[in-house]
């Protein structure tokens, strides 16, 4: 069974909502659309206060090439353009829409029949994807059309259905219910970049999804399901390429395309299908609501902009002893400041942790057990980078390749002394990145 070569950990899987059918979430009373839901320039609002919008109406234009437009997921009236606290924990500008009814843009094909073929040319496909505001739906939110316009020739597409984060099952449930659509989406990606071979990478803790996708993939040329051994952080782009096609992407500024590979999330493939075949922009996604204390863990098809508190309510309400609410999975997700944060394009899950689970262990001195070095998937020395960051030795930290850290958290997860390794490394990475940019700007 394939997996990536260096490091990795195996957190408890806790896939509580696995096997649960996708339920359709109710409409919110008010929907909030932060303008930076993706990596790159924030979107620019193209509606004014008081404007009437329908489901699928574009409300914000892309702010540049590396950016994506935003579409309304509800019909109603633009209440205001204001700042709200989003999932990043900071206050960012957003469009707020008061919901009124559920009127869709007439151009969207709402029928359930599956469309298999399109006469569109590759360039037109990419254009549609760009226009539909599709971004990587695994969490990083990198605009999909940028990835689909590679600088160098590409020979393989890898579909990331690994879902290596514990608890999350959004991709799993999507594969179980929309396998045909996903495969057509993969076909579209292949056509868009002119590639003959695609792998769908699935960890083997989802045998049902592997079997189903293998069965359905028989009807498609060049698409192969690639089962992988369960290991975190397999869903990391670099680790996934290493695991599936055994190629290692060099350090930035190199991109996956430089080794001839493009990685897209399985949710993105589905969104691409809907955008190209059904003319439906990206305004809803599957969100897992889960946690050991949650009454009914669920996979919910949710409109963007719905406050997370509504989803928690739907899953049985917020338990009394909730200590932490996490947007995303437990390894890389962000702890939320409040539950009014809206669901965004990258929100794969909401995880509630009890008071007891959410408290960190007390940090003890580093005993140099080298476990962090062993598990680091990038071959770094987290204990050293942490100390260098703490003591602001930026030059040495840069020499020790702090910038290649992917912030997967394996080191901190495994540290027997409960040291906050990644907290420091992340801070150091930010500072060193700033120093490097300043140096580049000077020269």
């Amino acid at each position, binding site marked *: 069974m394939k997996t990536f070569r260096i490091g990795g950990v195996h957190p408890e899987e806790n896939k509580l909502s696995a096997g649960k059918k996708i339920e359709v979430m109710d409409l919110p009373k008010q929907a909030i659309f932060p303008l930076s839901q993706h990596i790159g320039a924030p979107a620019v609002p193209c509606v004014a206060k008081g404007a009437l919008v329908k489901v699928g109406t574009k409300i914000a234009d892309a702010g540049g090439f590396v950016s994506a437009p935003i579409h309304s997921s509800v019909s109603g009236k633009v209440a205001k353009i204001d700042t709200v606290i989003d999932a990043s*924990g*900071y206050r960012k500008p957003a469009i707020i829409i008061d919901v009124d009814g559920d009127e869709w843009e007439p151009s969207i094909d709402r029928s359930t029949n599956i469309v298999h073929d399109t006469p569109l040319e590759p360039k037109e496909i990419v254009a549609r994807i760009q226009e539909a505001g599709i971004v990587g739906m695994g969490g990083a939110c990198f605009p999909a059309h940028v990835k689909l316009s590679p600088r160098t020739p590409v020979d393989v597409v890898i579909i990331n259905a690994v879902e290596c984060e514990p608890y999350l099952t959004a991709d799993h449930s999507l594969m179980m219910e929309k396998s045909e659509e996903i495969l057509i989406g993969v076909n579209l990606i292949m056509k868009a970049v002119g590639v003959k071979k695609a792998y769908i990478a699935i960890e083997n803790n989802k045998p049902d999804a592997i079997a189903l996708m293998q069965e359905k993939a028989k009807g498609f040329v060049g698409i192969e399901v690639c089962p992988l051994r369960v290991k975190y952080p397999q869903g990391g782009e670099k680790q996934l390429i290493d695991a599936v096609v055994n190629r290692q992407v060099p350090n930035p500024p190199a991109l996956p395309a430089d080794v001839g590979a493009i990685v897209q999330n399985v949710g993105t493939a589905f969104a691409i299908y809907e955008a190209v075949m059904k003319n439906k922009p990206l305004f809803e996604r599957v969100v897992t609501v889960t946690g050991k204390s949650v009454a009914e863990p669920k996979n919910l098809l949710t409109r963007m902009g719905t406050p997370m508190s509504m989803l928690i309510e739907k899953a049985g309400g917020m338990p009394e002893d909730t200590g932490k609410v996490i947007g995303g999975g437990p390894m890389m997700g*962000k*702890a939320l400041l409040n539950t009014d944060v809206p669901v965004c394009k990258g929100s794969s899950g909401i995880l509630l942790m009890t008071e007891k689970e959410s408290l*960190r262990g007390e940090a003890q001195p580093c005993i140099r057990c080298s476990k962090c070095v062993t598990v680091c998937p990038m071959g770094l020395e987290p204990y050293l980078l942490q100390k260098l960051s703490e003591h602001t030795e930026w030059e040495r930290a840069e020499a020790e390749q702090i910038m290649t850290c992917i912030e997967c958290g394996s080191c901190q997860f495994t540290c027997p002394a409960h040291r906050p390794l990644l*907290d420091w490394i992340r801070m150091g990475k930010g500072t060193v990145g700033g120093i490097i940019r300043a140096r580049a700007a000077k020269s």
Partner: protein
Amino acid sequence: MNVILVAVIALGVLGLVLAAVLFLIAKKFAVEEDPRIAQVAEVLPQANCGGCGFPGCGGFAEACVKAAGEGSLEGKLCPVGGQPVMEKVAEILGMTAEAGEQRVAVVRCNGTCANRPRTVQYDGVHTCRIAHNTAGGETGCFFGCLGCGDCVAACPFDAIHMNPETGLPEVDETKCTACGACTKACPRNIIELRPMGKKGRRMVVRCVNKEKGPVAKKACAAACIGCGKCVKTCEFEAITLENNLAYIDPTKCRLCRKCEEACPQGSIIAMNFPPRKPKAEAPVAPNADAAAPAVEPVQVVIPTVETAPKEASENPSL
């Protein structure tokens, strides 16, 4: 006998040869150093605190000599020795020391526990640098003090301390040398070096929140809401309003205290002023002052007139 003789001769010859080698090396690799550097270093306090921004007193002496060569000692100040030492330095270098303005660190946040309710609990490393990276911090204000005390740890003169009641750092103005270590340590640029002012008196907007009024007010009762009343009140054009935040230019401020009265939020604080009209019925203990609601800062007074200036300088957080 013979053995001793051989040993003595051998060692003696070895010593001579090595001495010659050392002598030659010292000659060949001698570094010409400006003798004034040593002279300047002599008058410096030799505390090697780094408060001047140079690596120790030696580094500062070198920098001073270099700056003198370029014609001006401007910006060079030994915070420990102060003006007297700088005059001596200037004398050695044959220049006149400009009367450098004495400055002091000012904490521009009044988000006490009472003013700024905690909305979440931060459970990461207890340092501002990381708390600042985590999210907006423990309160609704994303600009204000994080309260982890990086400035306290950075201060080489023990001049800044956390007040456990307010959760904010307080500057001990008698100890502060304006070295700027705390301003660099603060990830939110809350601490500013401002001119000491006459008798230590100065007007400060104790807020750095750039949010719009309602948002800022919701997060903190003492936040500047950017209403602009102070700007209109000021007769000397010393106050500017940018990004919903007022700023008092210390070089223009004439300490008339009108803006303090005009501010509806009590964000403008008059520091080290003698009490205006001592109110006999409201004797507030100095320690409780900072925690007291800042809506009526006029009440924040020290009861007796005689001791007021002295005590005020000891409690700079008023």
